[in-house]
C-alpha cells in the first residue's frame, strides 16, 4: 500500500471511517491492494452474518422443541427458581470452596462418629446422628423394600457419585447400592432387612478423600 492507502486504512482501524464510506469504496476501486484488505474485513463480516443467521435458526428451533421432564428437573439445581425446599437425592450442585471445606469437616467428624458407633442399638426411626447441614439422611419409612427409599439431602459436586451403604444389623451383612450418579438415581436394590444402619459415601472425581455421612440406625 502506498502512503495514501495506509493512511486511509489506519483511519478505518481507528474507527474514523467505515468500510462502507464512499472514500473507502473509491480507494478500493482504484487500488487492488487496498481492496484486498477491505475484502478481508468484509469476508469476516459475512461469516459473522452467517453465524447470526445460524444463531437465530437454532434459537427458533430450540424454542419450538418440546420441554422434556428431565429438562424440568434441571430447575432443581437452582432451588431459588422453584418453590421446593427439599432436595431430591439425585440433586447435583456446584460446591463452593467453603462448602467443600465444610463437607470435608463433616467427613472427618462423620467418619469418626461412624467408627465409634458400632455398639449403638437400633432406633426406630432414629434422629440423624451427628447430622450436619451438608449431608442429612432422611429416615426411610416403615416398610421400605428397596434402597430407593433411602434418601439424603445435600450437595453433590458435579461429576461425583455416591454409594448408599446399608448394614443389616441382624445378619451383619451389608447391602450396598450400585455406584449412583445423576443417571442412576432410582436404585431398586431389594431390601429385606428389618433393622439397619445406613450412611452415604460421596466420591469426588477430583480424587479428594470420600465424604462419609453420619450413620442412621432404623427399624423398617
Amino acid at each position, binding site marked *: 500500500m502506498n502512503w495514501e492507502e495506509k493512511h486511509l486504512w489506519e483511519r478505518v482501524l481507528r*474507527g474514523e471511517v467505515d468500510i462502507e464510506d464512499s472514500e473507502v469504496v473509491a480507494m478500493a476501486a482504484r487500488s487492488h491492494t487496498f481492496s484486498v484488505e477491505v*475484502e478481508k474485513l468484509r*469476508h469476516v*463480516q459475512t461469516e459473522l452474518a452467517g*453465524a447470526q443467521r445460524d444463531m437465530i435458526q437454532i434459537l427458533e428451533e430450540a*424454542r419450538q422443541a418440546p420441554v422434556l421432564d428431565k*429438562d424440568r428437573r434441571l430447575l432443581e439445581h437452582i432451588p431459588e427458581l422453584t418453590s421446593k425446599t427439599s432436595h431430591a437425592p439425585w440433586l447435583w450442585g456446584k460446591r463452593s470452596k467453603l462448602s467443600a471445606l465444610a463437607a470435608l469437616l463433616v467427613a472427618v467428624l462423620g467418619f469418626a462418629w461412624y467408627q465409634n458407633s458400632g455398639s449403638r442399638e437400633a432406633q426406630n426411626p432414629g434422629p440423624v446422628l451427628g447430622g450436619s447441614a451438608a449431608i442429612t439422611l432422611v429416615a426411610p419409612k416403615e416398610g421400605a423394600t428397596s434402597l430407593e427409599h433411602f434418601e439424603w439431602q445435600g450437595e453433590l459436586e458435579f461429576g461425583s457419585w455416591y454409594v448408599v451403604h446399608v448394614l443389616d444389623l441382624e445378619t451383619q451383612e451389608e447391602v450396598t447400592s450400585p455406584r449412583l450418579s445423576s443417571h442412576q438415581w432410582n436404585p431398586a436394590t431389594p431390601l429385606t432387612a428389618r433393622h439397619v444402619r445406613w450412611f452415604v459415601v460421596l466420591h469426588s472425581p477430583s480424587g479428594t478423600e470420600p465424604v462419609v455421612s453420619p450413620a442412621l440406625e432404623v427399624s423398617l
Partner: protein
Amino acid sequence: MSGSRRPHAGEASGGQWTDLELVRGALQGDLQRRQALGTRLLLIPRLLRVISRRRGMNLAESDLEDLAQDVFITVWSKLDQFEGPEELDPWVYRICQYQLLNVRRKLWRTAQRMAPNGAEVLEEVPSQDADESSDHRLTLLESAISQLNAESREIIQLHGLEGLTFQEVARHKQVPISTVKSLYYRALERLGRSMGLPQGEWGNGGSKQTP
C-alpha cells in the same frame, strides 16, 4: 451489519418485563420473576441438543444432560453479569456454545492422546450435517471469537452477532462511537487471521480463501 432482532424476551415472559428487569427482579428475590426466569432457562437443554446436532457432535444423551446441568449452573452464577442491552436468549446461547466448544476441544485432545505416534488428528470433530463446510466455518469463527480479548469479543457479539448499531453499543459501553468502531474493525482483522485468512497484502488477485 443490519442485524434482525428476535422477538423480545419480555414477550416470552408474557410481555411484562424486559429481560434485564426479569433477571434483576429474579436476583432480588421476586418469586414471580424467578419462576418466569426458570421457565425461560428451560431453553438450555433444548439449545444444547440443537447445537450439538447441528455441529455434528452427536453427544450421548447422558453427556448432554451433564452439560445442561453445568450450563444451567453457569448461567445462574453469571446472571449478575447480564446487563443488556442484548437479550437473554442469545446471551444464554453463547454460554451453551462456549461450553460445547470446550467439549469439542476436550474430545479432540482425547483423540490426540489416543492416536498412534505421529498420527495427525483433525482439530475439529467432523460434521455430519449436509452443510458441512458451513458448519466447519462456523466452528472456526466461534473458536476465533472465543480467543478475542473480553472487550473485543463483546463488541463483536453486540454489533456483529446481535445486530446492535454502533450507536447502541457506544451508549451501552459509554464510550465514543469511534472507539467502538475501532475495536470492531481491529477485531475483524484478528478474526480474519485466526480463521486462516492470509496475513498482510494479498497478491493472488484478491480471491478469497475459504478456511
